[in-house]
């Protein structure tokens, strides 16, 4: 197991190197002379400022050397400094990541609570009206633009009950009530939208499991339908769903760009959008790198937990 994990970690290195290369290349591919644009934005067009921006973006050294330095920096947890306020990108991202993490954690909890019961019911009552209804609802959930759902959640209460959400984010430690008032709706939207694809997966794997011989055996020895479905069925059907949950992290972080901009949450998604507007490219690069690494490690962790869930899987 430990050897397998180590081998997987080493196998990840080339992928990380490709990711970092794409990120370094990004700044070089920006249209126009990026230093000129930045000087215009900053309002000071002095040779010193020009040299500083050129240096900060690593444009004063050849690409291979810049790439080498960036890789070394990432290894040491150094993602460079912000172009404008000169703060460490790693620190800025760490601060914002807490908000995104809180929303993501609640969203995952919501999606599990919603999708697994729905998927199981849909599979057990296969091809019933209820099944058709739930399946259509879940495809609808995939089709609805998340920004439409999020915007509706913001405006409908205001329109119907004259209640509006507080748009002043407070951290949970600062003001738990106001924090949850704004985090819960945002996490709820993401969670419900995520549960659509998980419910579909749950239904498929549950159907598959319910056709297995051991389910027939369990029924034959007189166990109640409830026990058969939950103890023998669900436990085995959950395994592929766990993989999907891991993959959903990608969707959650992508979705955070939208929800954070609608609910005015100061998380990673908001940071990315703001930094793009301010052309603070080191932060943009930092967000892409840290999100990419997080997702790669999560996928690895999901693969490793597989062994615990399904004893048939042995790592070699």
């Amino acid at each position, binding site marked *: 197991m430990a050897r397998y994990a180590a081998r997987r970690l080493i196998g990840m290195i080339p992928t990380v190197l490709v*990711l970092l290369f794409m990120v370094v290349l990004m700044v070089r591919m920006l249209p126009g002379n990026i230093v000129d644009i930045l000087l215009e934005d900053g309002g000071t067009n002095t040779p010193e400022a020009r040299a500083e921006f050129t240096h900060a973006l690593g444009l004063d050294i050849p690409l291979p050397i810049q790439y080498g330095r960036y890789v070394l920096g990432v290894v040491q947890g150094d993602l460079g400094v912000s172009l404008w306020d000169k703060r460490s990108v790693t620190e800025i991202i760490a601060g914002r990541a807490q908000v995104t993490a809180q929303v993501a954690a609640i969203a995952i909890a919501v999606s599990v609570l919603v999708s697994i019961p729905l998927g199981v019911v849909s599979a057990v009552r296969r091809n019933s009206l209820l099944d058709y209804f739930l399946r259509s609802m879940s495809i609808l959930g995939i*089709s609805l633009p998340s920004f439409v759902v999020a915007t509706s959640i913001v405006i409908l209460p205001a*329109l119907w009950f004259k209640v509006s959400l507080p748009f002043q984010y407070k951290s949970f430690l600062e003001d738990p009530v106001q924090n949850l008032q704004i985090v819960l709706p945002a996490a709820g939207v993401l969670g419900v939208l995520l549960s659509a*694809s998980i419910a579909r997966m749950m239904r498929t794997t549950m159907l598959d499991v319910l056709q297995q011989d051991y389910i027939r055996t369990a029924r034959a020895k007189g166990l109640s339908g409830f026990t058969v479905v939950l103890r023998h069925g669900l436990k085995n059907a959950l395994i592929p769903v766990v993989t999907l949950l891991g993959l959903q992290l990608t969707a959650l972080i*992508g979705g955070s760009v939208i929800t954070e901009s609608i609910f005015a949450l100061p998380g990673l998604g908001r940071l990315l959008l703001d930094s*793009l507007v301010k052309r603070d490219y080191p932060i943009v690069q930092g967000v892409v790198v840290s999100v990419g690494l997080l997702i790669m490690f999560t996928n690895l962790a999901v693969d490793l937990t597989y062994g615990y869930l399904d004893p048939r899987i042995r790592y070699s």
Partner: protein
Amino acid sequence: MRVPVVGGIFRFARRQPLGTFGALVILTLVLVAAFASVIAPADPLAQAQREALMAPGAAHLAGTDQFGRDIFSRLIYGARVSLYVGIGAVLLAVIPATIVGVASAFFGGTFDYLVQRVVDAVQAIPGLILLIVIMTVLGVSLTNIVIALALPASISESRVMRSATTQIANSEYVAAARALGATDARLMFRHILPNIVSPIIVVASLGFGRFILAESTLSFLGYGILPPAPSWGGMLAAEGRAYMFAAPWLLWAPAVALSLVVFGANMFGDALRDELDPRLRGTR
């Protein structure tokens, strides 16, 4: 030839009622986009300040926006944008994805290893983040949206084509053809490509809905189609949000159109997948 096609359509309709509904939605989208100038009651760009922010009614079926533009007509012309983005991005994504996937599986070795690491890296970045960053690099325009949508998809979807090819490439008839002296090109085009048509169609049909949705999200975030061109996402973002309390129809009209089309495309893609390639079921 005619009878099997008609029979096939009927069989599909009987077995996949939801998929048939989806197909009809897509067909409607195509017709509306094609005949936009005939169907639309007004010019989608014509402003009339005296008729600004009118609620839906007899004069304007879906109301008007803050410039007095007819929302219904804008929706109809917006169908063209969605269709252009959907079809353009599907073509630009699926063709390279097929070439890369087939080549990667067929040649294997170092080439395959390198391609797969690039696929891994692209898949590790959430699609929306990748899209926004690519749009920043390319600059905002309709063509660039199509490119930005297609580029990551052409890389990550190549994996589907690769796994389909791997199965075929190891089959006995490919080995037999190779033994008969078939060239690599002949093996790929005559023996492998026709056998991976099913996953290609499935990836294309599911991609269509996904791309239309992604375009609207981009427009919503301000990286999409520039005003005054009518795009459903842009209508939602600009007019819809600014006047969401005073004129909620500015939000609902494009939201309904968009959701219906994406829903239809997903239903159709799902049904096609069930019919053509049961192995892929539940992968998305």
